[in-house]
């Protein structure tokens, strides 16, 4: 799980263009939206695409995504449980 979390942090940084960040800068349990990283609706959609491209998970409903995208940890747990790649 730890390896997945590190990998996921690096992928998030690249996908969302967080130029000045390293994985060490991202708190695994901090909220991704609202405070924390302060992601917006386009970022959410880009994360949905990331889940499909990297892990073969299709999230059809952005609202269901809210629970999945609470934090890096919840994302990693969901990926672990549902990945097809």
């Amino acid at each position, binding site marked *: 799980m730890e390896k997945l979390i590190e990998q996921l942090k690096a992928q998030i940084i690249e996908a969302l263009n967080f130029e*000045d960040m390293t994985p060490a800068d991202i708190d695994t349990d901090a909220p991704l939206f609202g405070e924390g990283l302060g992601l917006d609706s386009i970022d959410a959609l880009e994360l949905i695409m990331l889940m499909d491209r990297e892990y073969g998970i299709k999230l059809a409903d952005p609202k269901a995504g809210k629970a999945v995208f609470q934090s890096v940890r919840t994302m990693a747990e969901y990926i672990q449980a549902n990945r097809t790649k």
Partner: protein
Amino acid sequence: MQVIHDIEITTTSVLLDGKTIAVEQTGDKLLVELYRRYAGDYPKFFKMDTLSRLGFIAAELLLKQSAISDQQLVDAVILANRSASIKNDTDYLATITEGNYYPSPALFVYTLPNIVTGEIAIRHHIQGETSFYILNSPEQLKPIVASTLTAKHSTALVGWCECSKQDNFYAKMQLIWRN
């Protein structure tokens, strides 16, 4: 129509009100260098495509030169180019190749040329007009701007903001005032 400030940015040089600004980098890295030196407080810059970065930086330097603060006075942002958003269109196309189909929403956002005017409006809280034209040459923009700014005391950011590839871009932008 009075030109208050003007800027010209090429892939290797920057000229602000006729004075050269020394830069170390070229191409897209030049834009990043200018961002770090003159802005640095707007992480969204790194989400932008090259065209939007180009327009963003040109506007940033022009408005910093002038006494105009964020919430005031810029009535319009009127930009034009010849290539529309072709560079970003090409980047987006790479995410929808057959057999490797993962359309990127973050890239699709920038497949419209007027987005650069939207980025400038958001940064500087400009709730005036934002318009984008595709023209054969910068000279064609003059009558369009002249016929747009008919009210007295209009201030506008106008100019040419062209990007056909990541390291092939050019901008000439002015802060103008109609009195």
